[in-house]
């Protein structure tokens, strides 16, 4: 049965190869082929899941060795897969949500002439992401890690004719390079320290390693996670990544790829548990990002960018939980899965709205859409209730647990983290209510297109698009309760990540009540501001904070001033040095060699007598030196 594991990756990979190399012959049905590959992988995932459930807990993780890529003494690079409960969770999430989004895309991309390529990239993404979560060593994980980066780059820039999309793709790629550098350094450190980069040997030997080295590895892994999961300070690319087609935003930049950082930290729990300083850094990054993303989300008028801020913030929650150690890992992953449902649903809803509104993304030009798109409204609304943590829905359970775990950290630290998480919950409720109000309530504010003069005619999207939204909405509603019932998710994941019961300084019930109160406060405030009063079509000037948040809290300005400008200056200096110093030397050397060559050529006269003479001379020298060597 284990032999099915490689197929999980192989099926979408074959799909990608077929679609990208297959040529125009596949244009007509290529999208269904891609969808089939995704569904096939999901089917295999389900079979493996059922099979795993049938085994006793301690026998659930399985390893499938495929081949040894570089078998050198002391350097063993294997292509081997590991399927344990953590990987299984991801496999189902990736292939499940992935399949739904493939189906959705058949509708969303129906009129795009490069549709086949789009599905090829999506399949490529699935294969890379599955490789990432199935790898049994960091090197193979790195392959997947780079693979999803590539797929993300290709898909953000899918509409490459738009300069903004091309720039956004480039930005995402470059910012991710910084994080990837962290991962590669971490892998090198591991190899130096443990002589291996397979999970088993590394985690097994972690106990004996010095804390300093583990901290260094942990911090490098965190850097990697920051890049991929858009955490402060490498968060700047995610907002721009919304230039990609909306299904991409839903799959890659909300539900799966951006959570790879959380996976990395959780997977490396053995390292982080022994490196408290690195854990503190993780927690700090998570907390800052959850507030940062939430504030950005409050100010954006672009529906996708508001959701992107929200994604950043929600992943901040997960990173925070993962940084708390065994009291948080399970909840980080649980929130990851529930978030996968509701955020994918919200994005698909946003895509559906855009679909009906001539690709308008400015929420100030929406309003009152609930009448025109009832299904979208209903599914988006359920996703909305889930993300703000409305009691009984998915987000409520998972977020509540994280806030509880944050308080359980203990001491002043615990209080700070807990309160920040509570504030985050309130802000989440605020910005999500704002999105909801601006989009679906109030009077209609849409206007004719400035270029074509065409008035949008909002309409419900076709079935292939609404169906996935419905499925995801169901998940958004029930997943949390399902996971929490009888601590099912905890029991499922505990053998891999470990678990410690957290002891918050205030009763758990009080945390729940506080969270709910905060949420209601956020909703109330947003309702007053956007539900009760008219939403102006041109955005008001706003406070300094609003203006800063509209510009992503000045992250680009910061990067530009601190990184880009000194970087360009350094590059300019190097270019100067290169052209004046090095090139002068190199060119001079080349000229010298050329000159010598030209001179030497003349020896080649073409006369056989000259050649014979040179041979004779050479022989004399050879004989003489041989004799000379003996005498010295």
């Amino acid at each position: 049965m284990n032999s099915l594991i490689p197929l999980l990756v192989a099926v979408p990979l074959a799909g990608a190869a077929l679609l990208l190399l297959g040529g125009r012959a596949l244009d007509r049905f290529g999208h269904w082929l891609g969808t089939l590959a995704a569904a096939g992988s999901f089917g295999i995932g389900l079979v493996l899941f059922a099979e795993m459930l049938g085994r006793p807990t301690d026998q659930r993780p399985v390893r499938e060795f495929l081949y040894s890529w570089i078998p050198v003494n002391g350097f063993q690079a294997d292509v081997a897969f590991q399927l344990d409960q953590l990987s299984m969770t991801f496999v189902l999430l990736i292939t499940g949500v992935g399949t739904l989004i493939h189906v959705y895309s058949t509708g969303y991309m129906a009129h795009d002439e490069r549709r086949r390529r789009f599905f090829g990239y999506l399949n490529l993404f699935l294969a890379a992401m599955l490789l990432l979560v199935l790898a049994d060593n960091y090197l193979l994980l790195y392959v997947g890690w780079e693979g999803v980066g590539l797929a993300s780059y290709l898909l953000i820039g899918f509409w490459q004719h738009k300069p903004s999309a091309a720039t956004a793709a480039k930005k995402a790629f470059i910012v991710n390079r910084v994080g990837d550098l962290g991962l590669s350094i971490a892998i090198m450190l591991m190899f130096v320290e443990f002589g291996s980069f397979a999970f088993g040997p590394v985690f097994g030997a972690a106990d004996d390693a010095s804390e300093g080295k583990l901290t260094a590895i942990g911090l490098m892994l965190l850097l990697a996670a920051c890049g991929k999961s858009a955490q402060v300070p490498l968060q700047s690319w995610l907002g721009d990544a919304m230039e990609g087609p909306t299904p991409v935003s839903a799959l890659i930049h909300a539900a799966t790829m951006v959570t790879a950082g959380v996976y990395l930290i959780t997977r490396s729990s053995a390292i982080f548990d022994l490196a408290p300083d690195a854990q503190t850094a993780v927690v700090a990054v998570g907390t800052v990002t959850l507030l940062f993303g939430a504030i950005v989300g409050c100010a954006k008028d672009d529906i996708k960018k508001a959701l992107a801020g929200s994604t950043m913030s929600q992943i901040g929650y997960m990173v925070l939980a993962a940084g708390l150690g065994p009291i948080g890992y399970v909840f980080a992953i649980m929130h990851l899965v529930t978030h996968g449902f509701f955020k994918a649903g919200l994005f698909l809803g946003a895509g559906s709205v855009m679909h009906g509104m001539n690709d308008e993304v400015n929420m100030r030009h929406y309003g009152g859409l609930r009448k025109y798109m009832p299904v979208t409204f209903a599914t988006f609304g359920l996703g909305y209730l889930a993300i703000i943590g409305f009691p009984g829905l998915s987000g409520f359970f998972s977020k509540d647990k994280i806030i509880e775990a944050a308080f359980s950290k203990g001491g002043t630290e615990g209080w700070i983290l807990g309160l920040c998480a509570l504030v985050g919950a309130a802000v989440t409720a605020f910005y999500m209510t704002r999105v909801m109000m601006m989009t679906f309530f109030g009077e209609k504010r849409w206007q004719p297109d400035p270029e074509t003069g065409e008035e949008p005619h909002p309409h419900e999207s076709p079935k292939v698009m609404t169906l996935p939204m419905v499925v995801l909405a169901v998940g958004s509603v029930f997943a949390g309760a399902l996971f929490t019932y009888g601590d099912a998710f905890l029991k499922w994941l505990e053998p891999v990540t470990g678990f410690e019961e957290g002891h918050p300084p205030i009763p758990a019930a009080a945390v729940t009540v506080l969270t709910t109160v905060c949420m209601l406060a956020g909703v109330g405030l947003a309702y007053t501001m956007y539900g009760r009063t008219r939403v102006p079509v041109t955005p008001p000037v706003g406070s300094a904070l609003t203006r800063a948040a509209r510009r992503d809290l000045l992250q680009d300005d910061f990067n530009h001033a601190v990184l880009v400008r000194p970087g360009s200056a350094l590059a300019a200096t190097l270019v100067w040095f290169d052209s004046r110093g090095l090139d002068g030397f190199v060119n001079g050397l080349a000229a010298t060699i050329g000159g010598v060559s030209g001179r030497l050529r003349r020896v080649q006269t073409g006369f056989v007598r000259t050649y014979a003479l040179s041979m004779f001379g050479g022989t004399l020298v050879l004989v003489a030196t041989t004799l000379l060597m003996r005498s010295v």
Partner: protein
Amino acid sequence: MSPTLWLAAAGGNSASIPAPHIEYGQLSPMLIVFAAAVAGILTEAFVPRRARYGVQIGISLLGLGGAFAAVVVLAAQGHATTQAGLLAMGSVAIDGPALFLQGVILLTAVMAVLTYAERRLEPRLNGHGVDSFAAQGGAVPGGDQEREATRAGFTTTEVFPLTLFAVGGMLLFPAANDLLTMFVALEVLSLPLYLLCGLARRRRLLSQEAALKYFLLGAFASAFFLFGTALLYGYAGSVQLGDIADVVSGVAPVTPALTVTTQNDALLLIGLAMLSVGLLFKVGAVPFHAWTPDVYQGAPTPVTGFMAAATKTAAFGAFLRLFYVAFPGLKWDWRPVMWGVAILTMVAGAILAVTQQDVKRLLAYSSIAHAGFILTGVIATNRQGLGAVLFYLLAYSFVTLGAFAVVTLVRDSKGEATHLSSWAGLGRRSPLLAAVFALFLLAFAGIPLTSGFTGKFAVFQAAAAGGATPLVIVGVLSSAVAAFFYIRVIVLMFFSDPQPQGPSVAVPSPLTATAIGVGVLVTLGLGLLPQYFLDLASKASLFVR
């Protein structure tokens, strides 16, 4: 000879002369090739002219293929490792290096025969496809006889048996275990090559000039080799490599004659130096390289490719056997000298190539530089170095043959367009061919993921392990210089505008296409997955004594 033996022979008592014991089975690779060569000659005599082409190709491929099969069988029987030994009264050795190199030479020869047989590049004459060889080798260039033969569409099918004879000599050369056999092998391989060099269909005079130069200088070098043999016989009282080694290291029983000669190290050292001259000439090392560019340029291109690949392989095989079997005890005498030769060869080859304007001359200088790189592996004088050289020769043979095969395809009205200026913009006109040639050039330059990198890395690593680090540094620096002119051709092909009346790229028959395709596959294969062949070469790297 002693008087008693005279008497015995005169008396007809043949029992006192033991009949030499010949292991025909183990010599079969050479015997098969020689038999095929003789069959080829008979074909020339008895088969009608029109049928000869097909028959010759059949004989050649069968002979070479059969010989290769024999090599594989012998290797499988363990003759490369545990069953290695001396044959034919100690004059021929069968061991790992011999079988490995014989295999390489035979495969190279098969590829070469395919390029010889190519008949779609030249315009058809009198309804017959013709190849790169002269219509009638003996005709005076420009004379009436030649014109008639050309008009009649004659071809020189003798090239096939000539090549087989050369291959036979090449098989024997790295296997020869005494100096006389080695000399005979040297001549057997050289004489047919001299002839082949003079048989180009186009630019006949240049071709004949090349043949004459090669012959004169080759004879000159052979004389040195033979003189060295005589001196060594004078010193050691034997021409067998093992015996010489015993005398040099002082383990041989001291006979009265030896007590006199072994006093005189000059015999030994001068003899050694002269043998080296003969072999260094064949591999094209500086300062015995002067013939290389002229001959490579003048010879028919398929012959150049064959010569550059197989002669070098055979000559380095002999070189290795000579220095690893007969003179390991003299390491401290010959190594410094070879250091000098290797450095000169690498540097001069690379620097001279920089200003070349003809692609065949460029490849000739490149082959000189490569001889230098291979010499660094020889100088390592350890088992690792031996394995590395074997691998290098395998890799280099296929790249070289492929590169010269590509050269045959770029043509204008005067035949092959070998001037570099006419290769400008080839990448736009014929991207596939230019890409293939670029791959071969990258392999020559030793860029990773090609066989050239693996080979170069292996010899340099072995040389460094053998204590020749300065040599490695020179090697890497000359590789950098060499990279310049290889990349220059790539830049020329892909980033220059094509000439308006530039050459066209001929569409070859499956024969040349196969040779080039195999070259590409081997170049990539040995670059991407070299482990199996590195292991094979390393397993084969032990000489029998």
